[in-house]
């Protein structure tokens, strides 16, 4: 076999973080001029593997070869200099600066006397944008662009490095179907020039459409690499989750009945936000919220919970209008919110499980001196009922796995005895086994008559456990999909949701 058949080989890559074995002898190869997709659930290690390639993370062990030569990039600059460019999942941009400075950041062109050549920068940015048919002014301030425009700028930036290897980590999370087609034209053009593309996405149909090869990862391990034309959705899911779709979700046993909350004409106050959203939530219902990145789903939940300020609209619970001015008021009215960014807004990472369990409910443990005995018993029962795997309740929460951290946080909110649970991406960064447990937990809560609003970017998850799915598009309500009606099954529902998500863009 020709040793240069692969332009990139990643062999036995290992990487651990405190409490997580993120990569366990992961494998990946890339042929020149092809598109090789990397698939796996959240937390499967796809981004971590790419960050090891790009020099953001240092691998613990393993070999990376580019065109037959061993490489180990110390930092992103090193990777960029060696022909590897990457579009990051997080939009890493300097919001106060303009488009072209962001595109040229790290390699600003110079003219005489070491001064930055703004004219050249402008011209080259224009040319790149023209090539890629992107219609954005190079001098616009990044912070004023929409999320999808920002994503296109990131893609153009990565292309402008003229790299041999281009990594695209979730490049379509905020793009409409039309923009996705546009991106695919760009990608195909690059492969003709011999560029190797590594493509990470959650969207199964996209992957099957664009890829030459597909590698599936699960729990940090390499599972399989196959030509795309030998795979279909079902096979991919089986590889990704190691069980059939039918066994991926617990059986739905909840029976929605009777309106418990109605939200009418709710708008957020400060842009970017959402406008005029109305919906109802029934007792024992799991209401999904779908939408692209930037569709303002998180803002919706945060406004209901009083974290964000509302401009207008009413929230009625059990027939009574309530004015939620702060999370404290929301909590008193039986709301709970599990936030999207667990690390940023959920955990107290250095504190132990006791602290993390009781912190939302601290008033119940005494007026001045808190009852340690009651804290201990509540924490213990929370650990037991949610099956949190931990050495002790004294363990710092950051050393737990993502799934166990999430269980502690859910436990925290269950202690406040909520009636309505707002869950924002509740299974993000959680391994497959723990996901199943969290789905079961959500269904159990619905069985007890609680109302659940669940934002998720994972379509299968929404289709797996929700009774109805509300679709947001660019800050507006695009529609509510009633499950098991009208759309001829799950595939039709998924298609309809995707279409709705692009309504107002």
């Amino acid at each position, binding site marked *: 076999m020709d040793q240069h058949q692969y332009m990139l080989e990643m062999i036995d890559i290992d990487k651990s973080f405190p409490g997580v074995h993120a990569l366990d002898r992961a494998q990946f190869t890339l042929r020149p001029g092809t598109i090789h997709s990397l698939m796996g659930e959240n937390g499967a290690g796809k981004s971590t593997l790419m960050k090891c390639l790009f020099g*953001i993370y240092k691998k613990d062990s393993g070999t990376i070869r580019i065109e037959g030569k061993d490489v180990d990039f110390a930092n992103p600059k090193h990777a960029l200099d060696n022909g590897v460019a990457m579009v990051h999942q997080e939009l*890493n941009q300097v919001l106060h600066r303009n488009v072209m400075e962001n595109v040229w950041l790290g390699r*600003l062109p110079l003219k005489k006397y070491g001064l930055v050549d703004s004219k050249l920068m402008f011209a080259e940015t224009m040319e790149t944008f023209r090539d890629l048919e992107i219609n954005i002014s190079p001098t616009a301030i990044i912070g004023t662009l929409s999320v999808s425009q920002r994503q296109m700028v990131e893609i153009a930036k990565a292309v402008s490095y003229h790299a041999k290897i281009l990594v695209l980590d979730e490049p379509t999370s905020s793009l409409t179907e039309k923009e996705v087609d546009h991106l695919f034209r760009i990608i195909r053009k690059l492969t003709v020039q011999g560029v190797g593309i590594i493509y990470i996405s959650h969207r199964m149909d996209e992957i099957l459409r664009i890829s030459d090869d597909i590698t599936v990862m699960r729990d940090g391990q390499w599972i399989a690499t196959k030509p795309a034309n030998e795979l279909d959705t079902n096979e991919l899911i089986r590889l990704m989750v190691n069980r059939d779709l039918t066994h991926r979700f617990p059986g739905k046993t909840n029976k929605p009945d009777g309106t418990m909350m109605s939200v009418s004409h709710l708008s957020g106050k400060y842009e970017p936000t959402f406008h005029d959203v109305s919906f109802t939530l029934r007792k024992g219902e799991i209401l999904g919220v779908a939408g692209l990145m930037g569709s303002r789903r998180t803002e919706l939940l945060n406004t209901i919970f009083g974290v964000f300020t509302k401009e207008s609209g009413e929230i009625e619970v059990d027939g009574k209008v309530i004015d939620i001015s702060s999370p404290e008021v929301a909590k008193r009215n039986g709301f709970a919110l599990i936030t999207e960014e667990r690390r940023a807004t959920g955990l107290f990472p250095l504190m132990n499980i006791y602290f993390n369990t009781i912190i939302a409910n601290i008033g119940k443990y005494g007026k001045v001196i808190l009852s340690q005995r009651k804290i201990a018993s509540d924490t213990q029962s929370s650990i037991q009922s949610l099956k949190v795997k931990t050495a002790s309740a004294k363990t710092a929460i950051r050393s737990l796995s993502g799934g166990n951290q999430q269980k502690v946080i859910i436990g925290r909110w269950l202690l406040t005895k909520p009636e309505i649970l707002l869950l924002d991406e509740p299974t993000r960064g959680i391994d497959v086994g723990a996901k199943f447990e969290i789905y079961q937990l959500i269904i159990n809560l619905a069985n007890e008559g609680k109302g659940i609003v669940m934002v998720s970017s994972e379509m299968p998850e929404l289709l797996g456990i929700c009774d109805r799915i509300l679709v947001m598009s660019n800050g507006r309500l695009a529609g509510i999909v009633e499950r098991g009606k009208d759309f001829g099954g799950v595939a039709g529902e998924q298609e309809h949701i995707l279409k709705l998500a692009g309504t107002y863009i």
Partner: protein
Amino acid sequence: MEKSKKIGEFLLNYALYILLGAILVTVSIIKPNFIAINNILNIMKQASTKGILALGCAGIIVLGGTDLSIGRMLGLAAAVTASLVQSVTYASRYYTGMTEQLPLIVPLLAAIAVCVLLSAINGFGVSKLHMHAFIITLGTQLIAYGANCIYIESQPSGSAQALSTFDRNFLDKAAGNLMIGTVRIPYVIIYFAALAIVMWIVWNKTRLGKNMFAVGGNTEAAAVSGVSVTKTIMYVYVLAGVLYGIASFLEAARIQSVGANTGINYELDAISACVIGGVSFTGGVGTIQGVVIGAIILQAINYSLYFLGVNAYLQYIIRGLIIVLAVAIDVRKYLVKK
């Protein structure tokens, strides 16, 4: 409604200018002789050294840091300058072996070297040791103060008095005036203007400037774009050190006597000038013209209070209130409302 929102935004953005303009107008109404070319030149002159310090520390604030060591650093560097520019005919001079005046470049470079060294320590602490700028600069503040006291106490004459009696040439060049007709324009204003122009170019036209805004605005984005975050931070601190050194050299000439307390609290004026001028403590935002205007406005206030004969302690209270107000307004400007 849109219009009232716009007016509100305008008022918020320019609140300080409006407020400070009002103060100046009030002073001129109370004392009409306030508006005189000499007063204005005096304000500019006093604003210049502090302004040069502010030009240096503004970059550090853009990075999201702060610098508490400026004043004491200036004290030490001014002491070193002073010891090197004492008149050779002065019997109890620091370097008794010095029988000929040194070329002025020597004390200037010495002052710059002192400040660059200390500022580089700050930069190292922030970029490599990942310390908060507040803490590391608090440390170097004390180090610089101690070093200054030791330096002044080890005069060969055994005296621990302030260093004074400087060479005429030094005073002429650093604290002299340019005569245009009958108007005497202090050189220091010209130096400040020149340095402001250089810094404007650095901030707006060089890689270092753009990388500085990138690191201050979004460190992660800078890093994944291949900007060396460590180097950028180091360069910004070193550049600040150069400016502090120049300011120390000029300040020694202005006050003509450098003691252990020289420079005390100068960092407050430098930082206030930056904040008044719109350099945000959240990082990634600021302009040189803002810093220059901030420095002038701050000095105009000091001067007005002095001119009106306000009690010296009350002056501190008023200046303190101005800093609080400036930051309160600054925070409102960049607050992401949710």
